[in-house]
C-alpha cells in the first residue's frame, strides 16, 4: 500500500517520464518541416526579412544550443514567449486554462454524480426493462462521435430553437454595457451550457456503464449477503453497502477522465469556440508556435501524469484488496 517509499518511487518515475516527453517534444518540433514564418505568403516579406525574423526567434542557432536554452529556461520557470501572440506563454495558458477547467470540472463532476446514481439503479434492477433501456442508451451516449453530437446540439438547440448562444464565452454587448455581476455570471453559464451538455452526455454514458458493472460485481460479494442476513432494508443495502464500494472505481476514473478530457476537449472547444487549452493547442500547433504548443502539451502531459499518480495512490489507499 501507500508507503512513503512507494510514493517516492512513483514521483521519481513521473519526473523521468516527464523529462523524456519534454525532450522528445522539443526535437519533434524542431525536426518537423516548416517554421513559424513558412506560412506567411506575403510578397512584401523579402527573404532577408524572413531570415531576420528567424534569427530574432533564435531558430538559427544550432539545435543542441536551442535545446539547452529551452531546458534551462524551463527549469528556471520561463516557458518562453509565444511566437504568435508575442506574449509570455504562462499568461496565455492561464487565460485559456480558466475556461477549460470551468468546462471540464463541471461536466465531469455532474456526469459522475448522475452516472453513479443511474448506474446504481440499473445494476440493482439487472435484466429488467429499466436496466436494458438505461444501459443501451448509456452505450449509445458513450459511443457517440463527440464533434457530430456537438454539431447536432449546436444545430438544434442553438440554431433551430435559439435556446443557447452558438459559441464564445460571453455576450460582448452585455459586458461593455456594464451589466451587474450576476447577469454576467449567468451570461457565461448560458454560454457554458451547450459544451457542458455535450461533455455531460458523453461522460454520463461511460460513468453509468462503469458504475453498473462495478455495482454488479459488488452485489455478488458475500458481505451483501451478510447485510441481507442482518435484515437490512434493500435501500440501505443498495445505497450504503453496495454503492459505496462500487463507487470507488468511478471516483478514480473521474480523476483520470479529467486528465483525458483534453482529448475530447480539443474537439468540443473547437466546435463551440470555447477559448480553452485544447483549442489553443491545435491553433498553436498548426501555426508552428513552438513555445506555446510545447507548453500546452507539457501542461497536458503533466496533468495526465499527476492524475495517474494520484489514482495509483488512491487505489492503494482505498482498496487494500487491490494490489498491483
Amino acid at each position, binding site marked *: 500500500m501507500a508507503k512513503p517509499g512507494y510514493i517516492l518511487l512513483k514521483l521519481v518515475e513521473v519526473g523521468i517520464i516527464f523529462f523524456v516527453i519534454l525532450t522528445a517534444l522539443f526535437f519533434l518540433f524542431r525536426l518537423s518541416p516548416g517554421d513559424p514564418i513558412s506560412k506567411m505568403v506575403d510578397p512584401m516579406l523579402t*527573404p532577408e526579412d*524572413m531570415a531576420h525574423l528567424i534569427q530574432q*526567434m533564435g531558430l538559427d542557432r544550432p539545435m543542441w544550443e536551442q535545446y539547452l536554452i529551452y531546458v534551462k529556461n524551463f527549469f528556471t520557470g520561463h516557458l518562453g514567449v509565444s511566437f504568435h501572440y508575442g*506574449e509570455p506563454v504562462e499568461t496565455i495558458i492561464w487565460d485559456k486554462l480558466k475556461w477549460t477547467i470551468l468546462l471540464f470540472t463541471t461536466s465531469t463532476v455532474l456526469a459522475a454524480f448522475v452516472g453513479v446514481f443511474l448506474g446504481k439503479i440499473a445494476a440493482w434492477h439487472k435484466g429488467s426493462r429499466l436496466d436494458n433501456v438505461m444501459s443501451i442508451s448509456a452505450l449509445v451516449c458513450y459511443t457517440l462521435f463527440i464533434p457530430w453530437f456537438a454539431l447536432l446540439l449546436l444545430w438544434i438547440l442553438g440554431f433551430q430553437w435559439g435556446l*443557447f448562444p452558438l459559441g464564445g464565452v460571453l455576450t460582448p454587448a452585455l459586458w461593455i454595457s456594464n451589466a451587474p455581476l450576476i447577469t454576467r455570471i449567468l451570461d457565461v453559464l448560458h454560454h457554458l451550457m451547450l459544451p457542458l451538455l455535450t461533455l455531460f452526455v458523453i461522460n454520463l454514458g461511460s460513468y453509468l456503464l462503469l458504475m453498473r458493472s462495478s455495482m454488479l460485481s459488488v452485489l455478488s460479494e458475500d458481505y451483501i449477503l451478510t447485510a441481507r442476513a442482518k435484515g437490512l432494508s434493500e435501500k440501505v443495502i443498495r*445505497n450504503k453497502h453496495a454503492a459505496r464500494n462500487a463507487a470507488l472505481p468511478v471516483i478514480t476514473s473521474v480523476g483520470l477522465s479529467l486528465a483525458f478530457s483534453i482529448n475530447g476537449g480539443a474537439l468540443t472547444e473547437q466546435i463551440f*469556440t470555447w477559448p480553452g487549452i485544447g483549442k489553443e493547442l491545435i491553433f498553436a500547433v498548426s501555426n508552428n508556435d513552438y513555445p506555446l504548443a510545447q507548453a500546452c502539451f507539457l501542461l497536458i502531459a503533466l496533468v495526465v501524469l499527476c492524475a495517474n499518480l494520484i489514482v495509483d495512490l488512491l487505489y492503494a489507499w482505498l482498496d487494500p484488496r487491490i494490489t498491483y
Partner: protein
Amino acid sequence: MGRIQKNTSKLFRKSCDLTSPLCLVLVTLAMLGLGIVGLFSCSQSKESPYLKIGLPEEPRSLNLWLGTDANSRNILSQIYQPLFRRHPETLEMIPWLAQEDAVFNEKELTYTVKLRKAKWSDGSDFTSQDVLFTRQLFSDFRIPRYHSHWQVIEKAEAPDDHTVVFHLKEPSAVFLPRVMTAPMVSKKEWEQVCKDALATEKPLRYLQDYQIEKPLGTGPFMLQEYKKGAYIHMVRNPHFFGRGQTIGNLTLGPYVDHVLFNIYGTSDVAILALKKGDIDYYWWDIQPGYLKDLEKDSAVDLHYNKKSALYYLGFNLRKAPFNDKVLRQAIATVVDKAFILDRILQNHGNPMHSIVPAGNHFWHNPDVRKYGEGMDKETRIKAAFQMLSDAGYSWEIPPVAPDGSLTKPSDILLPSGEKMDKFVILTPPADYDPKRAFAGTMIQEWLRQLGMNAFARPMAFNSLLETVKGKHDFDAFVLGYGKLDLDPGYLASFFSSKNDNPRDWNMSGYRNPEFDKLAEMQKTTVDVQARKQMIFEMQTMLMEDVPYYPLYNPHIIEATVNKRFGGWVERVDGIGNIWSLCMVQPVK
C-alpha cells in the same frame, strides 16, 4: 491508514447520498433556467448604439510590429495612419496625414512632404519628429515589410515641425505606394521601448513582444477595452484630424462613437449572428455556401467587389516536362476557366487572363495572349492536341482520332520519344481552401484527356509551401494570393531570375533576361505612364511564357445588416476599410 480510509469513506458516503433524483432535476432546471436568462440577455443586446463588427479570429496582437495578420491590421489600421493612402475609387495616392501631394525634385532626388496639423489620440501634436523617429525605428530594427522599402531613403530631415524632406539614393517608382503608406508611430509612445529594445541582443523580438495597453495613434478610433477571446471595444478619437474634413471628395466622420469588434471562432457562428442582427458587418469574405439564404434575408445587404487577388496554376520550369513552353501553353489551353468560375466560384468572380488582376484597372493589361478563350471542350482539346503534336509530342492513341472525334488517349510521349512520367499538381487541402483544392482536381481530369497522367494532391499548407517555396521540389501547384498589393511591383519579385532561390518569391524558376531588365527598370521609373508601359510589356511576356497560369479571381462578398447603419464605402478588396469606418452612419 485506517484514519485515512475512514475519511475517504466518509467522503464517499456524501458523494453517494448526493446522487439523488434531485441531482437530475437540478441539472435540467439549470439548463432551462439559463436558457431563458440567455434569451433575455440576447434580446437585451439587440438595441445598443454600437457599430458591431464581427471578426473571424482573435487578432494576433495590438502591437503593430507583430500584429501583421488580417484581424490585427483591421483593428490597427483604425489607429496608426500613413502619410498617404489610396483613394477608394480612383485608387490614386492621396495625402492622408500629409497636407498635400509630395513635391518631387528631379535633380536633388528629394520628396518634400507637408504634414497636417494632426494630433495623437492623447492630444499631443503629430510633428515631423514623429516621422523621422518612425523612419529611424524602421532602419534600427530592420522592420520586416517596411525596412526593405525605406532603404531607398538616404536621409530625412525636418526643416520645421510640419515638413519632412526625404533624400533618395535613387529614383523610386514605389516611393508613394510602398514607402509613404507605412504607418506612423508616436515618438512619445515608442522612444523608451526602442532604447530598451536596442540594449537587448534580440531587439526586434523585444519590440514585437512589447505589450501595449492602449496603442497611441492618429486614426479615427482608439482602443477602449480588449477582452481576450471575446471582444474589442473602440471609441471615437476626439482628436482625429479627418473629422469633418473632405478628403478625396468624401466628408469624413466618423459618425459613430463606439465600434465593438466581436471575435468569433468560425464563420458559421458569425454569419448566424449577422442574420440575427447581433452584428452589423462581418469583416471577412463569405463562402458561396452561405449566399443562398443570405440573399433571401431582406435585412442583409450583400456587397460584391472585385478583389486584388491572384489564383493560379504554377509550373516548375526548372525540370522536364514543364521546362517546355509549348506544353505549358497547351495545358493553359485545355484549362476551362469558365467552368471553374461557374462551378467553384458559382460565378462570383471573373476569369483571369493576366497576372495583374483586372480589378487593378490602372495596371492591368487587357490584351495579353488569352488561351482557349471562348472555346468549348472539344475545340480546346483539339487546339491543345494541335500545339503538342506540332511541337513533336506523340501518342499511341492520340486524343483526337484522324476522323476528328475525341478518343481516350494513351500516355503522351515527349518529343524525345520517351513517356512523360506522372506528375503531381499540389493544392492546399479542401478545408484550407476548397476552391483551390477542387480546381486542382478538375485540371487533373482535363489533363488526363490529353493523355498526361496528372494527379491532383491536396497537401497541408505548411508542407505545401515548404515543398514549393522552400525546396523547389515539385511539378506543378495551385496557389494564390488573397490580397495582392495594388502596386504591380510584385511582378518583379515573382519572376525576376535573381529571386530564383529557395524561400524566395520566384517559385516556378522563371528566367528571362529581357524580363529581368524591364523588372529592374520599372523600379526606378518615376514617370507613371512610362512605368505602365513596362508593366504591360512584362505581363505580355509572362502570358506568352506562362510560368504561372492565372485561373480565377473571386469577388469578395461581404454582408452587412442594413437596419441600423449604412454608407459603407465600396472599393476593390471590399468594404472592409478605413473609409467605411469613417463614413458609416446610423440610418434614420
